[in-house]
């Protein structure tokens, strides 16, 4: 019996289903039409969400992936459709987010001829993707898709690009499903060297002031439990990176807060006082370390990571433990001894108190004056509870919501860390509503960033996607304004911004909304937002010239944070 012949486009549908894909974010166009035509018959299994701009498709795929741990998929046309996804691909690369971007491409006979809507997508995306591959023949579809998903989600995850030539979409071949769990040139998880574990354990066992840095690697490895067991056994306090914020409950006694430029005082100061520093699934980004010449020079440093290229990249370490922290953390836990570090842990308190008095009190519990971003974030977090997922845009809204949200569950923060992409928040939040429909997706946006993806209100309208949008409106590109105030003599060059009437915009899209100006209305506004089924836009008029504090100025030293500016 001869096998059934199907087109490359149909093979793509079956290959995606074979990978367990249920949701796609995309936008059609000439070079991907055969695929969209095939999709028409698969819409029962493959829920396609039509976005309003391809950049949003990529960010939505990221949001989907970040909340669910599954691969986010987007489907776009060639040329401008493909180039519109570039920011999302770069964002997913630097934040290790597993997405697969499938783009149409002109037929192979036209490649290289500057044909209509031809761009060298593989060439453009090679430096910003984990893997990028051109499908030139229909029979290559099953293998290409299987490899793409394997690469995107194994080891250190990342974005994969499939550039799908039009002839390969329409040609027919005998389809058979393909699985890939091995590529000889690709080692997703490096071997763990036992002696490195022994050395690390020895260092930890003799430490008087151990301190752990927790990054998104713990989220990606689903190793939150393993992390807690490890920290609790040897009584090790920790700080988390922005992307690692929800790897340990905010209220846990060993969680000393956020690291980095706008992190908490305690963990930053203590980085330069600890005797053993244990970095777990984090990459010593410059926004975390500040000046490398003065960073943790006194400490012995242990680095647990899955990516060999991260070892000694920015900070020279004494011991590198390679591997997946889901495995290496329990191995290390077995080898360390029970310990108590009460005094050391208590020594964080003076910094917590100082930060509370000088910064937090005024940001979260201001007695009078205009509303503050921090108090809004804390109020939403308290009202929405553990089901809430914080999605942020970029800027002051990001830093202050991340700082004052409280985290009690895994995968509760979705933010653009490495790339700092304005316009990320709204589409990422849309993606997150599809990634986990049980959770309350709270998107904190600035007035600048909302307008960078404002067209996605259309997607929210059409999908009734239950995004709770909290617009922190300060009538400024606030983050840049703050830097102008601090480092450029208060010369506010193009940071004041005229805003539209957001209530009217929401109304035009049929999205319920409310504007809160006074402190007394805040909790009511939040209640109304949370009690409304589906999407809601809560605009909060916040202080115009508010500042994010504390702050390690760029290139500054982690234990010399500014408490005011």
């Amino acid at each position: 019996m001869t096998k059934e012949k199907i087109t490359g486009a149909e093979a793509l549908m079956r290959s995606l289903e074979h990978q367990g894909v249920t949701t796609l974010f995309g936008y059609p166009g000439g070079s991907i039409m055969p695929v969209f035509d095939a999709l028409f018959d698969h819409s029962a299994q493959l829920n396609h969400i039509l976005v309003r701009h391809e950049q949003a498709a990529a960010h939505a795929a990221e949001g989907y992936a970040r909340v669910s741990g599954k691969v986010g998929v987007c489907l776009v046309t060639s040329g401008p459709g493909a180039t519109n996804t570039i920011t999302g691909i770069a964002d997913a690369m630097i934040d290790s987010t597993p997405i697969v971007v499938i783009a149409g491409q002109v037929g192979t006979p036209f490649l290289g001829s500057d044909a209509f809507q031809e761009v060298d997508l593989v060439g453009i995306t090679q430096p910003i993707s984990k893997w990028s591959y051109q499908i030139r023949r229909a029979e290559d579809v099953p293998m290409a898709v299987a490899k793409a998903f394997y690469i995107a989600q194994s080891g250190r995850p990342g974005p994969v690009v499939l550039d799908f030539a039009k002839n390969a979409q329409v040609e027919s071949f005998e389809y058979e499903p393909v699985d890939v769990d091995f590529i000889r040139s690709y080692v997703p998880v490096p071997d763990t060297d036992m002696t490195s574990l022994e050395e690390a354990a020895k260092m930890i066992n003799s430490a008087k002031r151990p301190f752990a840095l927790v990054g998104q690697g713990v989220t990606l490895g689903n190793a939150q439990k393993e992390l807690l067991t490890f920290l609790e056994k040897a009584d090790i306090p920790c700080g988390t990176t922005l992307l690692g914020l929800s790897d340990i409950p905010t209220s846990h006694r060993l969680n000393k807060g956020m690291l980095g430029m706008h992190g908490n005082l305690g963990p930053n100061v203590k980085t330069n006082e600890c005797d053993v520093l244990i970095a777990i699934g984090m990459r010593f980004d410059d926004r975390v370390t500040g000046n490398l010449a003065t960073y943790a020079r006194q400490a012995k440093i242990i680095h647990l990571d899955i990516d060999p290229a991260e070892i000694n990249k920015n900070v020279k370490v004494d011991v590198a433990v390679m591997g997946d922290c889901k495995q290496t953390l329990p191995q290390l836990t077995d080898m360390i001894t029970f310990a108590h570090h009460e005094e050391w842990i208590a020594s964080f308190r003076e910094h917590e108190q100082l930060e509370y008095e000088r910064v937090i009190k005024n940001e979260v519990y201001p007695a009078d004056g205009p509303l503050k971003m921090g108090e809004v974030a804390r109020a939403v977090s308290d009202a929405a509870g553990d089901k809430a997922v914080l999605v942020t845009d970029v800027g002051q809204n990001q830093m202050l919501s991340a700082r004052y949200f409280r985290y009690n569950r895994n995968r509760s923060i979705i933010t653009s860390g490495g790339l700092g992409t304005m316009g990320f928040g709204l589409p990422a939040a849309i993606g997150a509503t599809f990634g986990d429909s049980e959770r309350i997706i709270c998107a904190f946006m600035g007035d600048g960033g909302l307008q960078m993806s404002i067209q996605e209100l259309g997607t929210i309208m059409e999908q009734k996607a239950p995004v709770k949008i909290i617009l922190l409106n300060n009538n400024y590109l606030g983050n840049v304004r703050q830097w102008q105030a601090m480092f450029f003599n208060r010369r506010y060059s193009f940071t004041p911004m005229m805003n539209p009437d957001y209530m009217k915009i929401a109304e035009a899209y049929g999205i319920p909304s409310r504007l809160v100006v006074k402190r007394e209305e805040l909790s009511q506004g939040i209640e109304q937002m949370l009690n409304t089924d589906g999407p809601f836009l809560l605009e909060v008029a916040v202080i115009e010239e508010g500042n994010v504090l504390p702050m390690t100025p760029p290139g500054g030293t982690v234990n010399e944070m500014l408490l005011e500016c």
Partner: protein
Amino acid sequence: MEKKLYTLIVYSENIAGILNQITAVFTRRQINIESLNVSASSIEGVHKYTITIWAEEDTVIKVVKQIEKKIEVLQAHYFTDDEIFYHEIALYKLATPELENNSYISKVVRRYGASIVEVNPVYSIVKKAGMSDEISSLYDELQALGCVLQFVRSGRVAITKSCVERVNEYLADREMKHLQKNK
């Protein structure tokens, strides 16, 4: 740390576009590639790249790891000159009348162990295989004699002095682990 000449040997699957990915790693870090040689290796379907750069060891290590991270790259290693046998080849196009009029030129050619591989009334071609320095100084001497019409030299090719073949070991290890996993 001081800059030294390092030789990187990279093995990859034989797929279009890998060279681009490898050179991009150097470009990002503003490292100039001194020489580059790409060819099939002794293993079927595996390509070998021999790249020389001037850099500090710290940087070389980072570059090597970033190259190895590319999905289709099998292995990347770096070496100093004492760890490898290496060679370059150069061709010198000389004016035949000059060569015939000045017997000193052929003496120089012989002194360098170079050979004349083509002679016609207009030009002759001299071939020299050897180390960079020799190739350069032969060029300098011929140039001083005013007879060089064209000169070209290859990138470095290198072979490790070590008794273990790391790519073979790598491939064997990968296959074995894969088989074990699927049992």
